[in-house]
């Protein structure tokens, strides 16, 4: 028995009343745990969730995320209600920036309850500076034997708003980890396939997610020179903001795809990325085009389907998608093509359900946990 969901409900422009009704409906289908995923432009306020959760007979967690996906439909204002079949143990970490010792204590409790084998999901405030150290601490305490799939949550337009809730309250800079199988490992496929067009560059000065200099030169100047050369036109430093979505950085990794770091802003001579970039790391400039993105989406769906074990495929009804919001923002209305490309590759009858995230989380091929950008992650159990 590998299917983990009782049901997944989707409503575009849902009201709180709708959410209450859908939760009730999900409970009536014997869901043991409910996850409410609220699109950032939804009228449903996450602040209403603690009261709803308190009156629900099963544990309820919720998060705000840029967008939701259901089937071939995506929405920034929609809401997903995910009902889980088995009893799911969830851990809400109210402050991922807490000391290492505190985080370890909380995560070790999770391990004491659930062991180290199986599959788990993670939603973490994707706009927090503490995401990557937190992810490293999660790996330190959960080990490599539990497959994780997760997303960075939050509202890009309101980065300081709360983004995670349970029956106790609402939190920002928080995370939820929920364990949905202690017996089976999740099938995960992640992909971006973005090619390098320039580099390598040595990151000679950086602090957290801000790159100040590349090859000892101001980062913005290096970047504008590079994309000017790639495009064959002069692009001034003032104009590069128009091109940053097409040219993310890729951190060179051994035996792995480039670890993408989206550039989201230009601060003077520095470039602000989603996710940290360490000093002395080696970066390349990658190129995202509509064709590349859609082809990669199709390939991701294909590879996922090919690797699915027959037993899993038979039982599974939903395929979970964690897709980077930057892809949707870059593609605009053509994002539908990406969704279609994925869905076309999935086995018949499987429904895509997922989120448009601020960073994606999955294990590397070695087992470590990584915070990715501009990547499609597909999961199924």
């Amino acid at each position, binding site marked *: 028995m590998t299917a983990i969901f009782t049901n997944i409900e989707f409503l575009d422009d849902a009201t709180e009343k709708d959410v209450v009704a859908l939760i009730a409906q999900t409970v009536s289908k014997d869901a043991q745990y409910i996850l409410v995923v609220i699109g950032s432009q939804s009228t449903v306020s996450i602040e209403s969730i603690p009261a709803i959760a308190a009156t629900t007979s099963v544990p309820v967690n919720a998060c705000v995320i840029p967008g939701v996906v259901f089937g071939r439909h995506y929405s920034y204002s929609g809401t997903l209600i995910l009902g889980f079949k088995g009893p799911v143990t969830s851990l809400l970490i109210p402050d991922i920036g807490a000391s*290492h010792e505190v985080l*370890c204590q909380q995560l*070790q409790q999770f*391990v004491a309850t659930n062991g*180290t*084998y199986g599959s788990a999901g993670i939603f973490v405030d994707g706009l927090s500076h503490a995401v990557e150290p937190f992810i*490293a601490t999660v*790996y*330190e*305490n*959960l*080990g*490599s*034997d539990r497959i994780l799939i997760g997303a960075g949550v939050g509202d890009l337009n309101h980065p300081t708003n709360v983004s995670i809730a349970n029956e106790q309250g609402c939190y920002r800079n928080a995370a939820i980890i929920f364990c949905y199988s202690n017996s089976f490992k999740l099938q995960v496929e992640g992909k971006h396939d973005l090619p390098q067009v320039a580099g*390598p560059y*040595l990151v000679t000065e950086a602090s957290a997610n801000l790159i100040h200099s590349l090859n000892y030169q101001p980062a913005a100047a290096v970047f504008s020179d590079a994309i000017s050369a790639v495009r064959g036109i002069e692009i001034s430093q003032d104009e590069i903001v128009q091109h940053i979505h097409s040219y993310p950085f890729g951190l*060179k*990794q*051994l*035996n*792995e*795809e480039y670890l993408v770091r989206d550039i989201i802003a230009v601060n003077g001579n520095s470039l602000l990325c989603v996710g940290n970039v*360490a*000093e*002395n*790391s*080696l970066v390349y400039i990658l190129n995202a085009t509509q064709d590349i993105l859609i082809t990669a989406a199709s390939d991701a769906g294909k590879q996922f389907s090919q690797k699915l074990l027959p037993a899993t495929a038979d039982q599974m009804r939903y395929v979970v998608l964690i897709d980077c919001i930057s892809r949707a923002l870059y593609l605009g209305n053509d994002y539908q093509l990406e969704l279609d490309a994925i869905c076309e590759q999935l086995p018949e009858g499987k429904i895509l359900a997922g989120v448009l995230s601020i960073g994606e989380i999955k294990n*590397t*091929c*070695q*087992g*470590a946990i*990584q915070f990715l950008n501009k990547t499609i992650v597909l999961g199924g159990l």
Partner: protein
Amino acid sequence: MSNSFANLATLELVSIQYEITRSLNANADLRSLCRRYMETCIRRLSVKAAYLYIPTQMAGDLFTNTEVSHHDWGRVSMPSVTVCYPDQISAINHIFNQVLSQPATEQIETQLIEHSGTFYQLFSLSNQAIYILERNDSPLPLQVINAITPAVKDLFYACRASLQHSQVVNEVEKRKQAEQQLTYIAFHDELTGLPNRTRLINVLNQQIELCAQYDNSGALMFIDLDNFRDINDSLGHQVGDELLCQVAQRLQQICIKQEILGRFSGNAFVIVCPNQLMQQQYIDELLLHVHQCFDENYKIGNRSIDVNASIGLTYFTANSCDAYTVYMQGDLAMSKAKASTGTNSVFYQQDMEKQTRRRYLLDADMRTALAQNDFFMVAQPQVNQHGDIIGAELLIRWQHAELGFISPDEFIGIAEKSGFIIPLGEWIFEQACLCITRLQHTPLKQHIKVAINVSAKQFYQAEFIERISGLISKHKIKVSDIELELTESAMLEDIQLAVTKITALKQIGFELSIDDFGTGYSSLSYLKHLPVDKIKIDKSFVSLIDKREDSRAIVEATMLIARTFKLGLIAEGVETAAEVATLSNMGCNEFQGYYFHKPMALNDFISLLTA
């Protein structure tokens, strides 16, 4: 994912090396530093796990219990060893044992071991540290290993430096703690944990200085437990110690403001009340609370012990000389409280100091007075019912060169306390011998006996009998010519020893009388055991006996005892004819007192005898 390792660019290798080395630069504790280093390796080298082994002997408290493995090595790992799956643990233990069995080297050795399809890249340094990177599917390329070997070496050196630094810090910390402990011991009482005398002196000196600053005065309470020695002697020192602790606790509970409670000496506690608290009402209340500490019995084991304390109080100001003087004043007041019968607490007054000073002066001067013959003897005749002199009591007198006549009541007490009574007693005995020698050479109408007082200290002196026997022999006088007067209370100090000594004295030929009879409160029971010859009725019963029925009753009882035990009887302090008549009527036939003769110079006494 299809990257080939074949042509790793130099820049990429430099980047890897720099980034890993750079992770050591963080200003963090060793554990955080190791964690960050391993995180960087996992991320940058695409490895599954990293393990750092260090001998526990070197590692100090780096490892938790679960991280200490066999062969006295500890291991930190990423992910944590507690979440490594069983096969992973088993494999890494196998690898570790394999490395450990290899000969030690002085340089970093690298080695690749494949175990069940997993690749373990080892870096080891002469049994000082081992670093292992675990990787699935494919080993790390040689170029990468060469590039990161210096970075691993840096890790080992960073660990060693950090651990050595920690050891130095620990050593300094331990020394600091030892110094603090020594300081604590120097200033605190080991038994009760209270400030000790040294600390109290310092505190009081500070308080005296503060008095000048605030133009105010402070107070000191000197609290001395009564009869504490009896508790130690009868119940043991363990009980005594426990009692002191409990007293300290009770006193501590009442010191709720800024008072400083300390243990000044064995059974003496002190409360220093800072100047800012000083108000009479406060002192009165605190004193009341101190008294209340002794209201209830102390429970020690199954014993209930009634404890009292004598309290001396004194004030100190900016004009106080120093802490020692203030403590002395408190001690003096406490001694006064101990000596007084009506109260347990006494405030220090200046004349107490004068008295003490006089006491010390007399004590010191007594020694020179004896050498300079400032002491002399007088005789007070003893008479029969007809007024005939039958003997005399020799009494010591002191004419001080500067202070004039000093009362025997004053200096005998001081001599008793200081122990000077022993040489002084011997001198008196010798004077008695000389007196008897003179009497022997004087034609007398009848035989005269000479009585002298013997102090308790002298009497219980081990060689007392030998010494006075020696004097008798020296002066060649008859032992029976001397009557030794011992007070009732002196005999009662150790009745068994008293009986033994009196028996021995009797065998030599001395006559003995009980002085101040009736004042010891236990006259009847012991008398039959004491082979004495005579009872001297104390002057307190003789005075006004003609008018006081209670005195008569006591004297009648004393006479009955004397008759029963066939003892002689003499009344001392007789001053009126009515007293003589009453005593005669009651059957007393021997007297001593002003009514008959005042004490007189020996020459006068001899003249009187020969007249």
